[in-house]
């Protein structure tokens, strides 16, 4: 399995990298054709943020098949770290972002001790509880987090790169795109490197990997620290973009933890472009369902969104990338 994909990769690595790089360059130009304060640029920015989050999740969830449902713990940590530093010390969110990443790494280290021995569902549920625990802390630790009332990012009349403050979504599009590119490259490097090989060994059979001398704990730890740091960084970008947040927003199970994993699974977990495809489908889909059914009976748009999710998973449980490959396979077989 691993050998097969490696030969495949060595046969045409440049082709894929080039295609993705070209898409990246094209994506840079997209905002130039959209209203800088408009609605679609906002939706695309959100989609890019969730693509990056899905990619960060993919490092542990996809490569090692450690299904984390508590990544909001890192996301919220990044959000609060940078905002609290900005409010109380006027520190640039870029510096706050680094602080948030460091803090998230510490939290990931602490959580690794009790959770890494757990397998499958147990790991998923333990991480779920960890994310919820962080939400309870943010809600009750009023002195630092502002409690349930939430925090507003200080309003700055002038746009400023140093303060990551912009009145319109457009600059955030580029920031999110840059973050997505960085995290995608990190993911790619991990996937095709030694760490990726060890993580795949963990995914296939952890005991067997141990027997042949893979330090699975260390592999998982590295992956989860990188993933946590990347998630925290996105937390900072997300709240700078949204200007306001409360504990439920950034530590939410449904709004963050599950959604970032959902983006990866809808696209196809473990693949490079899976989370990107997933986010570009899931986030606009929510919007289209909401826009098309606005003014209709209460609950109808959420109902439609849930029904479409079910349909996607029933049609192809391994995600849209797998569906695409299946369809292409079928077409090429039919072609003469």
């Amino acid at each position, binding site marked *: 399995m691993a050998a097969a994909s490696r030969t495949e990769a060595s046969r045409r690595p440049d082709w894929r990298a080039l295609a993705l790089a070209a898409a990246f360059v094209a994506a840079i130009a997209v905002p130039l054709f959209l209203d800088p304060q408009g609605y679609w640029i906002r939706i695309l920015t959100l989609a890019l943020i969730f693509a990056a989050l899905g990619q960060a999740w993919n490092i542990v*969830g996809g490569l090692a*098949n450690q*299904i984390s*449902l508590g990544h909001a713990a890192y996301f919220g940590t990044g959000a609060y770290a940078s905002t609290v530093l900005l409010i109380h010390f006027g520190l640039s969110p870029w510096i706050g972002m680094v602080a948030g990443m460091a803090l998230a790494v510490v939290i990931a280290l602490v959580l690794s*001790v*009790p*959770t890494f*021995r*757990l*397998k*499958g*569902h*147990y790991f*998923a*549920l*333990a991480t*779920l*509880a*960890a994310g*919820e*625990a962080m939400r*309870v*802390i943010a*809600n*009750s630790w009023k002195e630092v987090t502002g409690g349930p009332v939430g925090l507003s990012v200080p309003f700055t009349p002038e746009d400023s790169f140093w303060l990551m403050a912009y009145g319109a979504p457009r600059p955030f599009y580029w920031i999110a795109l840059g973050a997505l590119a960085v995290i995608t490259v990190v993911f790619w490097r991990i996937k095709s490197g030694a760490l990726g090989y060890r993580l795949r060994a963990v995914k296939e059979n952890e005991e067997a990997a141990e027997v042949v001398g893979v330090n699975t704990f260390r592999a998982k730890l590295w992956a989860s620290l990188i993933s946590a740091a990347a998630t925290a960084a996105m937390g900072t970008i997300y709240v700078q973009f949204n200007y306001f947040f409360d504990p439920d927003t950034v530590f939410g*199970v449904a709004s963050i933890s*599950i959604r970032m*994993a*959902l983006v990866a*699974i*809808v696209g196809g*977990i473990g693949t490079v472009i899976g989370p990107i495809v997933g986010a570009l489908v899931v986030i606009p889909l929510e919007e289209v369902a909401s826009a098309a059914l606005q003014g209709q*009976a*209460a*609950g*109808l748009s*959420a*109902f439609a*969104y*849930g*029904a479409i*999710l*079910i349909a996607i*998973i*029933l049609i192809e*449980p*391994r995600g849209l990338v797998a569906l695409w490959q299946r369809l292409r396979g079928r077409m090429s077989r039919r072609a003469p």
Partner: protein
Amino acid sequence: MQFLQALVDGVLIGGVYGVISIGLSLVFGVMNIVNFAHAAFLMLGMFVAWFAWHYLGLDPLLGAFLSFAVIFVFGCGVQRTLIRPILKAPQVAQIFLTVGILIVLENAALLVFGADFRSVQTPYQTSAFDIGGIIVSKPYLYAFAMALLSGAAVWAFLERTPIGRAMRATSQDPMAATLMGIDTNLMHMTAFGIGVGLTAFGGAVILPYLTASPTVGAHYVVLMFTAVVLGGLGSVAGAVVGGVAVGIIQSLSTLVFPIQLQNLILFVVFILVLALRPEGIVKRRAA
């Protein structure tokens, strides 16, 4: 005294957590699926019991049987159409399918039943027994008794009936069960139906002290998973023990910590128990 009171409260509330968790544990044990939609069936059970109370004048403690029957049939249908096709799919796909079902059921309830908060009025819901200074809430006590009753019934069903034995066989070794001539598809469907039906039953018995609304299940999702994991995923007796443990931890924690931190204490205990005893408090019986 205070301690004793908190302990009694914890056991009573925990018994109910236990029953709504049995179904989740059963579904996991037989099908190896983590069902996030489970709490939505609790909500549906509450609505069935509410309508039975409103239109037929049936006390929710009796309406619970109707809730079980209706949701059992509905659950079988859901399993047949949505869960069965993904039984062999990757674990993540299963999780997100059930999340999708949760979203659909919650909003379908909103569309059909509306957003009103529905609660029942029963003569016993505002009274309590006073046993030597210890106050034992009547609705809690009745719910607890019904919960244990249904738990015992499920246990007897699994242990003493041929279908129950076939179901256990399916959960332990599906391949061998198939070879023995057991229809595993049928077993999966029945187990899912019983699982969600039981949770609906639990929803009905707590209706005398809680309010039905489309999103009520959300409050129970994490609690149920905690109870099930503490008890050991897949174990029926474990779910009850886990539920009672959750109730006691919640109740006792308020003696020392602010109630706001109730669930934080619970999650810390939960993660610690997992780390030290990943198989849960009650070790699952070997096959």
